[in-house]
Every structure is written in structure tokens, then in C-alpha cells.
């Protein structure tokens, strides 16, 4: 019997907490807190409930153990790895020969950097840039918006800077619930005397700690932020020196915010004018400030503009390029940042090098030894529509669950049915898998090793703690086998021959400028990891970005002027009188594939509840615990009601983990191509339990039974 304690990174959210897995003979038996590793993101080894329950999902009874091939929808036969790889390779090759843009690849923010690098390399070597992942559905506007203002789309500071700030502005983000361990740094700042400003349509756990709480309507962010900028400019509270020396476009901002007087903003957002003035003063005069946001801000048709305005707000106050200040978008999954850095995105090569830039393309053509497409590929939602039209015929889905995660899920299911060929690579059966032709069983994160990049650009190595079940294999191994079977069997960067994940990371070091010095050897030695950019092997990594200059061509921040206020594309009307918004629970994660397989979490967060204001509830005759039906133009969803003052009148808030995306709108932000998951018009009516059960049958099952038949 050999007992081991292996340092890993939490497989859940973007905080990237470290912990030890205790295992006996490769079988997980418990965890231990990483109290003895200095400078990690979870100080003193603290973990949230998900981190405490990591062992449970590994032991799920329905883990996928062997490759499967579909006989008909949802019915599979077991096949061998060699058969599976051969079939996948041949089918992909055939589509690529015809027209590579018939293929669509999905990377995953839930797995290591290495497989994400490989999945996009595979797509690109086959001749298409059709590769994307679920960051499209959460933080695409952060990437495009911050890139426009500062020149790069990542968090500009680290957790340490949140702790050192004097004011923290949290918008569209229930920090305490989504990233409890990250919220620790907010509380520590508050203890030091920092002020906390929270803007959210719901009175959340986070709002409870706010010094100033701005409860605005879902989708009214542009007006709110412009209102703050208006006051800061009118009262000359901005950092004149910083604006003069390091920003361009200030005059346009002044003109754009002219009409956003506190009184006007009060009308649009529902936030009292005095509170807007107070918040603006508190924020601008603090000396050091951090802005942090998440999906409440980004999942809108104007998500990019929202982010640009936040960047502008931070810049005019001089809150960039110094410690204790900056912009901190909070990533939901443990490797959203990494999957973006690795270019599981349709418009860039690794390290955000545009596919349309001939010079960059030339580099990668030489590096990978193939001709590459310079045409920007499809994003997730665009791919669904292209598949509907028959333009995209095959999906390769790694660790993703579009049936639950994409907006307008009914449309997604309709599309998946139309596909000619779909490969799903995952650790447990998902509703998406029911549409698959080939299922490839993957090892879970803790069952293999590799590097991950957390929300503060910290790259860490996670070691293999336990054995994968059955014949499940690491993601990098599966992709390398598929690559080789397609014919990319050269050694070196021109092929898919790898011995281990470290091999892949070495190739990433060679082609990704930000990761050049982040070698596997350094990461394995230094458990706290390295913050990119880390341009060489003797570089210590970078905590605060933009100390001297921004990454824009001029080196200055491009302040954004957004003179027009836009609300959600779908506003309440007579037929759909309420505004629907979605949110999440602390103990549930993503599409619940992992958390619903953990007893401790499932017991505490067993079902979704729709939050509704007492006044609305009285009008509709609803009490807490009643079954209601939420209906939008796209679908209907049965759910129990929770009457609470936490939401504004006229707003219904529903957690999304249980498949509420059948309701949401897939109207897109024109730049970032993110669907407007956070706000749409809806109707609510009381129903009986029986009706609810009937409606529920029409929803995709969260934990589907994949039937394995004989021969």
C-alpha cells in the first residue's frame, strides 16, 4: 500500500487554488490543504465547498471507461481505442479534403493548456480556423474590450493588488459566491479600510459587504458606467497627469458622457442619483482602485462596450500600471485564461497573434510545416447556425457541453441533430454526448498532468494524483493519437509525436511569446507558478501589466467613448413583461457535470430556484416553493419559486446550471460574438407540479443514461 500526497490545482473555478490529493495505490482517499506552499492564489490553503469535494466526482459510477461508437442517437457499442482513433482520423481527413471549413473544433477551459494547444493545432493543420471554446460564452468581451483599450485581453493585476487596493468596484459579479477564495482578498482589503462598491441587479452575498450598493436593471451597465465617468469628469476627480501622459481619446469621452447626468442615469438604471455621485467620488478619490467583473457584465449584446467603458473608467482615474490597482475580470473555469492564450479561438494563433497577420501566419506555417488559412474561423454560436445551414458538418467537442452551456439551447439541440459527424471527448456522459457518433473517454484533470493558467495569468503545474478509470486517457494523448493517425506523424513541431504533456509545453514555449520562459521544469519546481508575460527562462514573471506603457500600437490607452445607451435587445413588453437574468450557485459549477456527481454538493444545492420580488409574486399569486413556468420567445422552463427582496421588481433571476439556457437569447455582441445570456424578456405563471414534471421531460437530462448495447 503506498500512500501519497500529490500537489494539484483545483479542477473547478478560475481562482486556481492549490491542494493536495491523498491517494492510496492510485485511488483517491482524501485531500489536504496546501498550507505550506507560499504565494499561491489560495492563501493558507483555503478552499471553497467545490474544492473540498473534488474527490467525489472522480469516483462517479458512470465515468466513461471505454471508447464508444453510436448505433443510433444515444445508443452506443464499445470499441477499441485503435478503432476509435482510426475512425475519427479518417472522417476528419475526409471532410478536410473536401473543405476544411466543414469542421468545427471545441477546446475546453476545463482542461490543461496542452490539449487546448493541440486541438487548435489540429484544426489549423487541417486547414481551418474553426476552433473556439466556452470563453466565447463568458469572457469574449473581456478579451476584445480590454484589447481595444489596453492592447491585451487579460487581467492587468493579481489578487495581491485587490488586497492592496483602497477601493474595489465589483460589477455584474457575485464575487462571494462565484469565487469565494478570491473574495477573501476583497474582505482583507475591506478590513484594511478599503471601500467596496457593488453594482448588481440582485442583492447578492457580495452586496452584503458593500459600502455602496447600486442595484441597476440587467443590461443597463453602459448608462451606469457612463454616469460614473460623467460625475468624475464634471467634478475633475480624474487623474489629469495620467490622462495627459498615457491616454488618448479623452475629449471624445468628455463629449460622450455629457448627457449621462446622474438624473438621466437614475431614470435608465433605477439607481438613485445621489448614490451614483457618491460612488463616483468614492471610486475616483481613493488613490488605488480595482475594478472586477464577470458574466453579469459581459453576457450582453453590448458586452464589449461595457468592458471598454470599465477600462476607460480605470484609466482616467489612473488605476493602471501600479500595484493595488487595475482591472480584474474573474474567469469562471480553471483554465479560461489558458485556453484563450493557447488560441482555442478562431481569430488568433497561440499568444494572441492574429491569423490575418501574414507575418505571424508565415511563422506558424514554418513552425508547423503546413499551409495555414488566414481566414478568421467561426465562433460557437456562429458554428451552430452554420451547421443548421449544412455548412459545418462535423464537430470535435473536447470537454464541452453546448446543450446546457449555449444560449438558446433548443436551437443548439436542433443543430446537433443535423450534424453528420460528432466526436465528444469527456469524462462522464453529458447531454451533448447523446448526439455523438464517437465518444472518447478522457482522464479527469486530477488523473493526468499539465499546466493551467488561472484568472490572474498565473501558470501552474498540476501533477497526476490518481489513476484514470478503465481505458480513459489524457486529453493530450488522445489528440496526439488522432493527429498522428491523420498523417501528421513527424517528430518536432511539425507533427503530433509527444511523449508527455511537458513535451507539448516545450513546443508552446517555442511559439508563444508570453510563455517563452514558462518551461515545464520551472513550473514543476515552483508550485506557486509564474505570471505571464514571462519572456525568458530567467524572467521572474510579471505581476502588474503596463507599468511603463500599454500594449496598444501607440503605447497609450485608447479611452472608449460610448455616447449611445443600449439596453438588452429584448425588453419586457405586454406579452413577456419580466426581465430574465441568470446567475450561479457557489456549490454548483458550469453545466453541473462534475458537481452533480458529488453527494456533498448535490445535497446542499439540490435544485434551482427562481428568485422573484414579493410584489410581483403577490400579483401572480406565487409563494416560495410553488412551481412556476418561465417562458420566453425561445422556450419554457419549469422551476420552483423563491420570493425574495434580493431581486428588483420586474426581474426574475434563475440559476443556469440546470439547463435554463432553453430560455436565453442568442442575439450576439457584434464584436465579441457573445450571446446575450444575461437579459431577455420573459413571462412567469404558476403551474401545478404535474405540469412541471411534464415540462421537465422535454428538457435535456443533466445526467443522461448513455445506453451501451451489444455488437
Amino acid at each position: 500500500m503506498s500512500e501519497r500526497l500529490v500537489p494539484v490545482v483545483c479542477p473547478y473555478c478560475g481562482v486556481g487554488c492549490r491542494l493536495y490529493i491523498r491517494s492510496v495505490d492510485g485511488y483517491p482517499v482524501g485531500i489536504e490543504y496546501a498550507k505550506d506552499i507560499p504565494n499561491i492564489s489560495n492563501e493558507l490553503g483555503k478552499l471553497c465547498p467545490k474544492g473540498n469535494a473534488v474527490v467525489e466526482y472522480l469516483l462517479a459510477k458512470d465515468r466513461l471507461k471505454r471508447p464508444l461508437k453510436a448505433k443510433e442517437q444515444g445508443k452506443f457499442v464499445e470499441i477499441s481505442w485503435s478503432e476509435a482513433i482510426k475512425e475519427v482520423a479518417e472522417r476528419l481527413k475526409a471532410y478536410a479534403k473536401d473543405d476544411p471549413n466543414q469542421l468545427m473544433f471545441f477546446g475546453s477551459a476545463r482542461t490543461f493548456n496542452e490539449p487546448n494547444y493541440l486541438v487548435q493545432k489540429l484544426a489549423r493543420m487541417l486547414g481551418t480556423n474553426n476552433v473556439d471554446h466556452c470563453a466565447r460564452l463568458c469572457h469574449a468581451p473581456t478579451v476584445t474590450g480590454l484589447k481595444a483599450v489596453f492592447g491585451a485581453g487579460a487581467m492587468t493585476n493579481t489578487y495581491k493588488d485587490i488586497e492592496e487596493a483602497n477601493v474595489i468596484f465589483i460589477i455584474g459579479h457575485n464575487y462571494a459566491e462565484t469565487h469565494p477564495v478570491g473574495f477573501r482578498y476583497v474582505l482583507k482589503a475591506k478590513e484594511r479600510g478599503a471601500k467596496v462598491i457593488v453594482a448588481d441587479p440582485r442583492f447578492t452575498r457580495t452586496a452584503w459587504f458593500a459600502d455602496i450598493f447600486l442595484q441597476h436593471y440587467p443590461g443597463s451597465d453602459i448608462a451606469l458606467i457612463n454616469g460614473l465617468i460623467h460625475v468624475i469628469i464634471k467634478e475633475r476627480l480624474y487623474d489629469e497627469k495620467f490622462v495627459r501622459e498615457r491616454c488618448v481619446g479623452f475629449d471624445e469621452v468628455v463629449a460622450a458622457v455629457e448627457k449621462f447626468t446622474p438624473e438621466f442615469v437614475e431614470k435608465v438604471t433605477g439607481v438613485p442619483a445621489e448614490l451614483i455621485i457618491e460612488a463616483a467620488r468614492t471610486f475616483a478619490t481613493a488613490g488605488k482602485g480595482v475594478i472586477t467583473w464577470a458574466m453579469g457584465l459581459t453576457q450582453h449584446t453590448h458586452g464589449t462596450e461595457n468592458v471598454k467603458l470599465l477600462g476607460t473608467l480605470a484609466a482616467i482615474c489612473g488605476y493602471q500600471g501600479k500595484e493595488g490597482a487595475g482591472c480584474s475580470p474573474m474567469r469562471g473555469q480553471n483554465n479560461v485564461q489558458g485556453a484563450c492564450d493557447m488560441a482555442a479561438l478562431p481569430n488568433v494563433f497561440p499568444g494572441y497573434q492574429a491569423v490575418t497577420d501574414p507575418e505571424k501566419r508565415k511563422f506558424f506555417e514554418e513552425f508547423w510545416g503546413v499551409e495555414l488559412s488566414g481566414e478568421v474561423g467561426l465562433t460557437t454560436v456562429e458554428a451552430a447556425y452554420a451547421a443548421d445551414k449544412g455548412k459545418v458538418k462535423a464537430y470535435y467537442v473536447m470537454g464541452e457541453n453546448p446543450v446546457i452551456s449555449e444560449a438558446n439551447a433548443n436551437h443548439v439541440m436542433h443543430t446537433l441533430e443535423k450534424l453528420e459527424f460528432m466526436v465528444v471527448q469527456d469524462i462522464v456522459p453529458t447531454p451533448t454526448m447523446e448526439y455523438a457518433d464517437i465518444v472518447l473517454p478522457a482522464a479527469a484533470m486530477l488523473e493526468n498532468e499539465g499546466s493551467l493558467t488561472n484568472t490572474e495569468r498565473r501558470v501552474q503545474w498540476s501533477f497526476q494524483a490518481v489513476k484514470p478509470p478503465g481505458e480513459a486517457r489524457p486529453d493530450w494523448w488522445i489528440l496526439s493519437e488522432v493527429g498522428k493517425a491523420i498523417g501528421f506523424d513527424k517528430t518536432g513541431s511539425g507533427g503530433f509525436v509527444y511523449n508527455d504533456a511537458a513535451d507539448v509545453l516545450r513546443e508552446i514555449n517555442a511559439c508563444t511569446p508570453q510563455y517563452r520562459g514558462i518551461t515545464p521544469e520551472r513550473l514543476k519546481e515552483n508550485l506557486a507558478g509564474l505570471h505571464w508575460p514571462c519572456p525568458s527562462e530567467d524572467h521572474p514573471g510579471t505581476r502588474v501589466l503596463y507599468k511603463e506603457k500599454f500594449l496598444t500600437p501607440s503605447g497609450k490607452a485608447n479611452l472608449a467613448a460610448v455616447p449611445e445607451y443600449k439596453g438588452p435587445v429584448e425588453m419586457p413588453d405586454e406579452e413577456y413583461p419580466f426581465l430574465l437574468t441568470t446567475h450561479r450557485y457557489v456549490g454548483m459549477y458550469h453545466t453541473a457535470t462534475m458537481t452533480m456527481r458529488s453527494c456533498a454538493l448535490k445535497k446542499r444545492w439540490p435544485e434551482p430556484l427562481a428568485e422573484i420580488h414579493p410584489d410581483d409574486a403577490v400579483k401572480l399569486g406565487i409563494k416560495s416553493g410553488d412551481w412556476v413556468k418561465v417562458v420566453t420567445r425561445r422556450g419554457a422552463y419549469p422551476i420552483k419559486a423563491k420570493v425574495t427582496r434580493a431581486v428588483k421588481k420586474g426581474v426574475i433571476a434563475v440559476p443556469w446550471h440546470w439547463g435554463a439556457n432553453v430560455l436565453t437569447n442568442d442575439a450576439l455582441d457584434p464584436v465579441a460574438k457573445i450571446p446575450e445570456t444575461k437579459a431577455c424578456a420573459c413571462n412567469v405563471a404558476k403551474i401545478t407540479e404535474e405540469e412541471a414534471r411534464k415540462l421537465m421531460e422535454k428538457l435535456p437530462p443533466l445526467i443522461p443514461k448513455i445506453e451501451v448495447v451489444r455488437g
Partner: protein
Amino acid sequence: MARKTVFIDFSKCIECRACEVACEREHSGMSFISVFEWQEMAAMALNCRHCEKAPCVEVCPTNALYRDKDGAVLLAPQKCIGCLMCGIVCPFGIPELDLINKIMGKCDLCAHRRAEGKLPACVETCPTDALIYGDFNEIVKKRREKFTEKTIELAKTAERIPLTGV
């Protein structure tokens, strides 16, 4: 003997329930700390106080409840007859009946972890430091110190504020 226990600063609790999940993991599926939502918004974790004059210890007919060297109130399962007395006399209703074994269960301040020099799991995990493991007197002393520090700090800044316009 300094008697240590787990205190909660409920102003810091975010109702994440990490403490419950951690406790449950360390005690084979039973959690001896519970987080309550209080007036919709505030939350509060409730656990055994390991009382100075513990009624549970006093009432137990078989002496199944006893104190260990750190002063924690522990339950010896082999002596427990499941009579429920301790659960009834505990002002917080802490001892619970383990439905499978028909004996009582309660917080043992993670005796197995303390033996290795570690803190109770709930304290170790709490992301906001709402749970504090320590001796009542020490904690109170620290709080007083902190309060004094803050007051002095405040007095200092007040001196610097020019009293123009007053």
C-alpha cells in the same frame, strides 16, 4: 488549561458552506457544523461550543461524553446507547443521532487532525476567516487590541484634518 474551540465571526460568513463540506469529508459523511441563512441575507455557522460547563457531559448516563486533553468534548461511540439525552439538553441541539449506527455524533474539533498538529478542517478551509480556532480569552484580548489600534489610528487622522469651515 486553555480551552480552545471554534468561534464564528458571522459578519464575515458568506454562506459558502465550505466548512460543512469539509466537516462531512472528515467525518465519514456527517457534518457537525451547519450554516443557517438568517433573515434572508446574513448567514451564520453553528457548531458545538465545547462548553465550559457542558450539560451534555453532565447528563450522559454512560459517560460516553468526555473531555480530551485540549478540552474538547468528545463522544466515545462504544459507550453511547443512543438515548438522545445529550441532544435534548444541549442548548444548541448539537449532538445528532447517526441514523445508521443509532448512536450520537458530534463535533470532535477534528481530533484526528489535532493529533497531527493541524487545525479543525472547517477552520482550515473557511475562505473568509469567519471561523477562528482558539481560546476565548486570547481571542477577546486580540479583539481589544485591534479595537485600540483602530481608535489610535482614527485619532491620528483626525488630528490631520484641518478644521476649516467649522
